[in-house]
C-alpha cells in the first residue's frame, strides 16, 4: 500500500465508524416499534427478529469487511471461514430440529420452568397466562 492508498483507507475507516454508530441508534429505535399493533403476517417476534438481526448483519458485514479486511483477503481465510460457518449451521440445526421433532417427548416444553416455579423464583401465574401478553 502506498501512502496515498492509506490516506483514502483512513477516510473509509472513519466513515465505517460513523455508519456503525448510526446503525446502533437505528437498532435501538426499531426495537420500540410495536409490531403487535400492526396486522402483519407471522408473529410480532418474527418481525422484531428480522429487523433487529438484519441491522446486526449489516453492522457485522461492515466490521468484518473493512476493519478485519475480509473484503480483500487471501483464499485460505475464505475457505477457513466457509468451513466454520458450515459447522456452525450444523451445530445450530441439530438441536433445533430435535427441539421441534415429534420424536422428542419434551417438544415445545421449556426445561426447568417448573423447577423455577416450585423454588419460588418466578411467579407461577405468568406460566398460566396466554402467549400474547409478552
Amino acid at each position, binding site marked *: 500500500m502506498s501512502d496515498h492508498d492509506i490516506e483514502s483507507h483512513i477516510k473509509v475507516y472513519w466513515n465505517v*465508524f460513523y455508519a456503525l454508530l448510526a446503525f446502533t441508534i437505528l437498532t435501538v429505535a426499531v426495537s420500540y416499534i410495536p409490531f403487535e399493533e400492526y396486522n402483519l403476517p407471522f408473529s410480532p417476534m418474527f418481525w422484531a427478529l428480522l429487523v433487529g438481526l438484519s441491522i446486526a448483519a449489516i453492522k457485522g458485514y461492515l466490521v*468484518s469487511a473493512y476493519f478485519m479486511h475480509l473484503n480483500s483477503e487471501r*483464499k485460505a481465510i475464505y475457505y477457513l471461514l466457509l468451513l*466454520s460457518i458450515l459447522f456452525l449451521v450444523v*451445530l445450530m440445526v441439530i438441536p433445533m430440529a430435535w427441539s421441534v421433532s415429534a420424536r422428542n417427548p419434551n417438544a415445545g416444553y*421449556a*426445561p426447568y420452568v417448573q423447577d423455577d416455579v416450585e423454588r419460588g423464583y418466578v411467579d407461577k401465574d405468568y406460566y398460566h397466562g396466554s402467549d400474547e401478553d409478552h
Partner: protein
Amino acid sequence: MDIEIPYNVEEREDTGLYNAKLGIWLFLASEIMLFGALFSTYIILRTGDTTWMTAVKGAHLNIPLATLNTAILILSSVTFVMSWVSLKLKDFSGFKKYMGITLLCSVLFLVIKFFEYKAKFDVGHYPSTHNFYAVYFTITGLHGIHIIGGIIVNAYLWLPGSKMWNTDPKRFTNRIEVAGLYWHFVDLVWIIVFPSIYLL
C-alpha cells in the same frame, strides 16, 4: 541460541499469509463455534419459554448503558485500526495514542458492565434465578472475559511489547494486525449480542 522463526513477516507460498494471521483466523473459527453453541442454547431456551424475562419480577436490562457500551466498543475498534495504520505510516506516537484510546475504551466498557451486573445482584437477580438470567450472564460474561483477555494482550503490546518496533518493525506491525483481528471479532460478537439479548 538464536533460531529464526520462518514466516513471521514474509508470506508463505501455499497460504499467501504470514503464519500468525492464519493462526488467529483458526482461533477465531473456534470462537465462532464457542459463541455459536451458546447462541443456539439461547434460541432453544427462548423459543421454549414464551414468557421469558417477564416471568421474573422486576427483571429488566439497561438498554441505555448497553447502547453506550456498543458505541464505546465501536470506537475502540476504529482506534485499533488507526493504531495499525499509524504503524504502516511509521508514526509510532500515533500508534501509542490510538492504542491508548482503545485500552481506555476497553476498561470503560468493563466499568459499565460492572455497574450493570451490580444492579442485577443488588435486587437479588443471579444466573440461577431464571433461564433468562442464566443466558444473559453466561453470554455477556464470556464476552467480558474476552474483553479482559484483549486488554491484557493489548496493554502488553502498548507498553513492554512495543520495544519490538525498534528491532523488528514489520513483525510488530503484524502483531498489531493480528491482535486487532481478535479485537474486531470481540466487537462483532457484541454487535450480535446487543440486539438479540437486550432488545428482543
